[in-house]
């Protein structure tokens, strides 16, 4: 069911091009911060505060660049946040249209089963830890696979090449170490 790489690559390229043609380059990882800020501000309403000309925050990261992140968290109905929600919806509809991900896969991916057997709790712990490192790294780098690697290299941005070099330098040995058996 996976698309041939020539058709898949062309379609993915058209989406990245369409985004920059109509609006701006695609990016995702910032929205994890925005969601954190929305939740944080619900628990502690002093996190994001309104100023004369916008929003700011008691958190230095949310307040940086003129309160850009604080502003987006205060107004979640903005392009970038809705983009990520729509992305989830698009993936859901596409998966449903091809008959859905099968039950075993949803519980545990085959590559994990091949290497570590029927150990879903371990897998979930690994996914949680992986998620923590991925988002910490993405925020430190200022972008993720979408924003830095794909949108960045597409625009011949030096930061995109630096990011891709770092990501693959760590990802390939880590994957070889953790997943010795082919799934």
């Amino acid at each position, binding site marked *: 069911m996976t*698309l041939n*790489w020539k058709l*898949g*690559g*062309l*379609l*993915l*390229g058209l989406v*990245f091009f369409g985004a920059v*043609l109509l609006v701006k*380059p*695609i990016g995702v990882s910032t929205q*994890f911060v925005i*969601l954190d*800020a929305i939740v*944080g501000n619900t628990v502690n309403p002093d996190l994001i505060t309104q100023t004369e000309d916008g929003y700011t925050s008691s958190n230095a990261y949310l307040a940086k660049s003129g309160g850009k992140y604080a502003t987006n968290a205060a107004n979640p109905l903005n392009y970038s946040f*809705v983009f*990520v929600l729509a992305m*989830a919806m*698009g*993936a859901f*509809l*596409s*998966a449903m249209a*091809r008959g859905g*991900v099968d039950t075993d*896969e*949803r519980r*545990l*991916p085959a590559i*994990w089963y091949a290497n570590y057997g029927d150990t879903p709790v371990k897998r979930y712990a690994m*996914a*949680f*830890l*992986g*998620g*923590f*490192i*991925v*988002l910490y790294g*993405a*925020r*430190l*780098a*200022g972008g*993720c696979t979408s924003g830095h690697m*794909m949108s960045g*290299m*597409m*625009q*011949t941005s*030096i*930061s995109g090449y*630096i990011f891709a070099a*770092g990501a693959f*330098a*760590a990802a390939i040995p*880590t994957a070889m170490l953790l997943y010795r058996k*082919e*799934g």
Partner: protein
Amino acid sequence: MTSIILAIVIGAAFGAVLDRIGATNPNWIGKMLTLTHLHLMKTILLAIGTGSVLMFGGQMLGLVDVGHMSVKTAYVGVFIGGLLLGAGWAAAGYCPGTGVCAAASGRKDALFFIAGGLLGAAAYMLTYPAWKASGLLDGEKMTLGAVPGTEYPAFFNLSGDVLGVVMGLAFVAIAFALPERLRGTGEAVAPAE
């Protein structure tokens, strides 16, 4: 309102394509990163190349607004962050976008990935002042060549849009040149869906 409609259309298209190319499937990510099946790598390289050629070609013809480009700052933290992201990406089989899409398509482990991600992003929010003070976040927004109509400093003193098209074509060529697998023996085996 227009921007919200565009967000819905482009976002949904992005999510659907990520699902169809196998990027939201940790088995495909594992195959790519262990170099045992490079199908997804070829897809990604072709996509970057296609996007680059269309964008820079369109800019040269005056059909694409150069002002829509958004180049990120290059600094030492980009490399360190890239290393961290790479390690987590390999371990989990998800990156931020594909993790969200995988959770939406019903994968349970992806929900744990998102939970970990929200905590990781929060941890960065709290530790940001230390990184800022270290100077590792200081740098410049730089492109490979000088892109007409932008203020970005250029790494090489060459025409940025011509270089962009050339780089795009190079990505396409690499996508075609890469073999199905670099490690292991026999036919590269596609993972289960």
